[in-house]
């Protein structure tokens, strides 16, 4: 499988865990970013097929980063990661172009399912 992913999360723990889940299914994680600014810069640089985006982050939050990425690339596939209780935010993200949501704490099966659907495989 040749699907390239970028993981955006301010927590190293979360990035490593998500990477572990995705690599188990044979996805290629080509980039990680720890905040919104880095996410936009790395998106331009590596053009991943799918991006997982945390919402609450320093410097530029996930929704701002999503909006900028969608402006750069209308076809970008961005999946938001949000915690329980952030339903209002997920609606805003959906309106800004997010393709789907993964709930934290991550359930590996649910993560794989969502990514599989977005990847269309």
């Amino acid at each position, binding site marked *: 499988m040749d699907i390239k992913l970028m993981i955006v999360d301010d927590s190293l723990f979360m990035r490593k865990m998500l990477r572990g889940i995705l690599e188990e299914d044979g996805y290629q994680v080509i980039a990680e970013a720890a905040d919104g600014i880095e996410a936009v810069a790395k998106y331009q640089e590596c053009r991943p097929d799918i991006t997982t985006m945390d919402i609450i*982050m*320093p410097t530029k939050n996930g929704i701002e980063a999503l909006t900028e990425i969608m402006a750069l690339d209308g076809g970008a596939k961005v999946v938001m990661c949000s915690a329980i209780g952030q339903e209002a935010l997920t609606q805003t993200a959906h309106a800004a172009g997010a393709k789907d949501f993964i709930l934290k704490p991550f359930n590996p099966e649910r993560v794989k399912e969502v990514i599989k659907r977005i990847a269309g495989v």
Partner: protein
Amino acid sequence: MDMSQYRELFISESREHLNSINELIVALEKDAGDRETIDSLFRIAHSIKGMAASMEYADIAELAHKLEDLMDRVRKGALPFDGGAADLLLEGTDLLEAMIADVEQDAPASRDIRGLVQRLISYPPPSTEIPSIKTHKTEQPPPVQPVPLNASGKDEGRQAGSDASQTVRVKTDVLDQLINLTGELITNKYRIMTISSQVGSGSLDEACVELSKLLRGLHDEVMKVRLIPFAAIADRFPRLIRDLAKKSGKEIVFEVEGREIELDRGILEELSDPLIHILRNAVDHGVETTEERLAAGKSSRGRIRLAARREKEQVVITVEDDGRGMDPAKLIASAIEKGVIKQEEGWLLSHREALMLTCVPGFSTAKEVTEISGRGVGMDAVKSAIKALGGNILIDSTLGQGSRITLKLPLTISIIQALVVNCAHLKVAVPVVNIIRTLELKRGLITTEGKHKVFYMGEEAIPLVSLNRIFGLPLSHLTGEAIPVFVSEVKGRKVGLVVDRFIGQQEFFVKPLGRPLVKLKGLTGGAILGNGEVVFILDVANLM
């Protein structure tokens, strides 16, 4: 999914966050309206919650969640950030720290979080007014401006993602292993050089010179890897000062400078306790109460400044306060009264020497033992700890204006320069930093005062002690006109230590002594000479 592989990462990342919380809360108490700080606090609690939930540490996740909720209320303007909120958050941070320590030690989750969780939910307590920190602040901080939910504002980005791609996390034992191997290589270099001098081969000598250069380079690089910014310990102190000031009812402004100055992690780890003690003294004995300060025409708030700076091959750390200062005459009187020094000795002490009396074991000028400075551990313990690191401590003080404690520390440990001396059949290495002077002392210059043999260095009478005698070795009959002596400081006093012979100076890789040798007083470690011979490293500060 096997989550145990992420456990260490959870512990280290949570700890980083908890350290930041302490700092941020103290900063927020100074400026309760700072939105960036409020956002950062919210985000950190949120992050810990997410990690703990993933690891299925339900209690940690629950407590972090309640801290996040409290900060969310502050963020949305529903709750002013006041002293009570700060106290609750700090209490939560302490409890989380304890719970994470439990995780690290595989202890079962046994902490009771219910009481605190309940207080977090129902804060502010409905029946009472919002409590304020009367002792710490002169007025209630202004309520926080409402912050839109999605605002992130600018942030210094302490998680700095852009740096993350160029750095790797390395376990500290790997770093220790690197320095160990480098040390062993240095020991081996001396072995090869010894052989080389016996063989008398020009090309082998050249190879040795090259090897020395390469090892010097390796040593420098390995030491660089071990450097950690001073911030790693200094960032805990604002919280400490805040708590101490609150407890003693004093108003204190605390400043830290030189957070970025780098030190060897081994030194930094050993530095934390002595600095805590010095800072406690500054709060407890240095800075006066508000009433005293106002009566003395000073500003009501005391000031304590912690600063680190690099000076050539040393790091200099200072703790300054603008408090009441120390009175040398009182110190001398107290020392005489306690029998630490004799009356006539007291007359001879300089201002600075009188101040150093505070570091003599058993000496304390505090009229009462307070909860803050505690019992038992005094400045003498601070001084021994600093000496053990190969450092030095200086005290300056002006009565009525304040005190300054200066710590001078080497940049590295483990690999040191030392002078090898002979005592009977034994070879001992004396760290160069502990030697004030070496001399071949002419017999005619030795006089007897009371029971002691002394010699004069300038105006100062230096007692002579035989190192052989200290170690219980047979005394040698030195026949020459002059005897080898090195002058060092033992428990605050200059002493001339007589040895049989000076052999020479070289660098040593010091290894800790195993049991039962570790119990021997006056020795701090061992090292191996080029010819395979073992030498002991002298612990001058604890020799007698």
